């Protein structure tokens, strides 16, 4: 089955992106396909490569980058939401790309199930 994921909150402040990550990983392990992970609202803040959490904490940005590399995931950051919040090509982490909201609608059309994580 093909899943589309929408993430509306940034890292650390809300658990949304942790939950989305665990869900995505579990879906991939069960052999499902992830059509796309779309980052909207504060969700775009998951895509900054300048994140450096304490040593004993998870690095959420790196977790997404690594999962994307391993499974060829499409991590899309909404351009309008990103510009509002200071995410641009120059601080974009590996594995993410910036694109338009149309990519979210397309995900809704192509995926069998769309799941939103947020606050």
């Amino acid at each position, binding site marked *: 089955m093909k899943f589309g994921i929408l993430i*509306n909150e940034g890292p650390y402040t809300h658990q949304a992106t942790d939950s989305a990550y665990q869900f995505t990983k579990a879906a991939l392990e069960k052999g499902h396909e992830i059509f796309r992970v779309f980052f*909207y609202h504060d969700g775009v803040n998951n895509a900054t490569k300048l994140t450096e959490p304490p040593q004993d904490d998870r690095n959420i940005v790196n977790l997404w980058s690594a999962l994307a590399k391993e499974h060829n995931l499409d991590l899309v950051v909404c351009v*309008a939401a990103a510009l509002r919040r200071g995410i641009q090509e120059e601080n974009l982490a590996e594995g993410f790309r910036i694109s338009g909201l*149309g990519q979210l*609608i*397309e995900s809704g*059309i192509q995926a069998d199930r769309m799941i939103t994580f947020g606050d």
Partner: protein
Amino acid sequence: MSEEASGVVKKFLYINRKAPYGTVYALESLEVVLIAAAFDQDVSLAFFDDGVYQIAKGMDTKAIGQKNFSPTYKALGDYDINKIYVSKESLDARGLSKDDLMDLKYEDEDDDWAEKDSIHIVNSEELADLMDSQDVILSF
């Protein structure tokens, strides 16, 4: 569904349950809906809980330094987005009635372009039916 599923028409429901201005969700949800209009999908909007405040009339945002984006809702009809469902219970709990909402209209091309109401006041059971009949639900 195949990779090349062009021509697929799905039922998309956008759920709005948060008040405007206190958070950005109302504005950024509206931005999604405007983009969605280009995709020829079957789009509905539901406003309930504090979401009903999003389409209240008479907003004046000058003194808080934010843009009043409420006129954009009036443009939805021009984008063929005219299925707008508003919870009666949510209005009642807030002491609001349809008169407190903006007048959202569209022109029905199947009825000689007659001007019609986009807003449908529904009760919670009707809302539950609406939600249950959707393919994709986006909540912000």
